[in-house]
């Protein structure tokens, strides 16, 4: 059955640990989505990835039904993981928070490629490099 889409809701959540408290509750209740059905399904599909931020992109249809797909973790999460950093400074001017190699950037670009609008890996790498700089992380060869 073909259905019309009402909204796209992307939730960045901790794998295996979704629960009905905010942000899940208010985000989904506003669309009349069965919250427990989503929480159970999300946790089941992400239980092997605890410790990661795994976004769920939910497509809400006009009749209240929905589907969702899991996306790759946010770029910033992958950068922090690659260099073992807890938090980015958020301010490039504040000083360098760590170092990342071009090989690591390529790995992240390959992982994120399908979720970017880049036409090739080099383009995706340039997008990742922009985020790296915004986080105050230094790029080394």
């Amino acid at each position, binding site marked *: 059955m073909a259905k*019309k889409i*009402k909204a796209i809701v992307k939730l*960045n959540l901790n794998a295996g640990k979704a629960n009905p408290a*905010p942000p899940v509750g*208010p985000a989904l*209740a506003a669309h009349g989505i*069965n919250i427990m*059905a989503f929480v159970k399904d999300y946790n089941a599909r992400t239980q092997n990835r605890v410790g990661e931020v795994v976004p769920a992109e939910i497509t809400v249809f006009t009749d209240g*039904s929905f589907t969702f797909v899991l996306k790759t973790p946010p770029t910033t999460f992958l950068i922090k993981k690659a260099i073992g950093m807890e938090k980015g400074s958020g301010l490039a001017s504040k000083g360098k928070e760590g170092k990342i190699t071009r090989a690591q950037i390529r790995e992240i670009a390959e992982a994120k490629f399908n979720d970017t609008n880049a036409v090739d890996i080099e383009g995706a790498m340039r997008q990742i490099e922009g985020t790296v700089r915004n986080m105050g992380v230094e790029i080394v060869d």
Partner: protein
Amino acid sequence: MDKRVWLEVSALVSPESAESVSELFSRYCESGVVVEQGVEFQGVDDHGTPYGPCRVCAYLEMTEAIEDTKRKLSEGLWYLSRIRSDIPEPTFRVVEDQNWMESWRKFYRPVFVGERIQILPSWIEDQHPDRLAIRIEPSMAFGTGTHPTTQLSLLLTEKYVRPGEPFIDVGSGSGILSVAAILLGASEALGIDIDEESMISGKENAQRNGAADRIVFARRSIPEINRGESGLKLTKAPVVVANILTPILEALFAQGMAELVAPGGMMLLSGILSDQDERIRAAAEARGLVFVERMAMEDWAGYAFRKP
């Protein structure tokens, strides 16, 4: 105990800025971040394309550190606005905790279809005993039952189901049409689908409506059934319904869907956009089916054909 209170922080930004803002929020809101975007429709075939700005929001628990966190979030957005011009100041709103598990249910009401059917969410009391109640639990597979294709297929089922005779539902999905057929008096029903999730969902809905002993859900293909290799007792019925999309209906006709209809029986079709009329009529008539009637709702059509 006092209710928990949350502070919602949100910002309306362009899709290009959404990830940067989302990352900023995630530093202070560990439970997660929401990015929401609307859709636009580019023609009748378009199911919806993401369009317009994104609303990024997250929730902070009200603790002693809340004012400090608010200041840091405002500062972070200000720094981002030096790089991206579309970044606004954040909006804060106090949100009282509530039973989120239940709050989504307030959107649901009984849905009346045709002259005899009502679709009733499982928690709502039946106040219309003159109508047959199809009990549903809204979930991923099934929403409110308000979609025109669901309504058209229910209307056709209500009109053509034959009490005391069997019924076949091709692409059974949530199983709602098989359940409706049983409630309307069909002796037994077969729901076939290629999706394993549909098998689970169909059985749950049959159980919920006290029809589990008269409906078989099977993951079988039409050629398997027509070759006698399905292992199913019911392989032909005087009423066969299929609520799928036109290209899939065409493919199913090519696979022999019309052979499931007993001579003199009815083939009911839904999931057809109004501008696909000629395609569906051509596909059905090429298999010897005779046009009986067309029903329309919004930009969707439902068809009844008879097998001579």
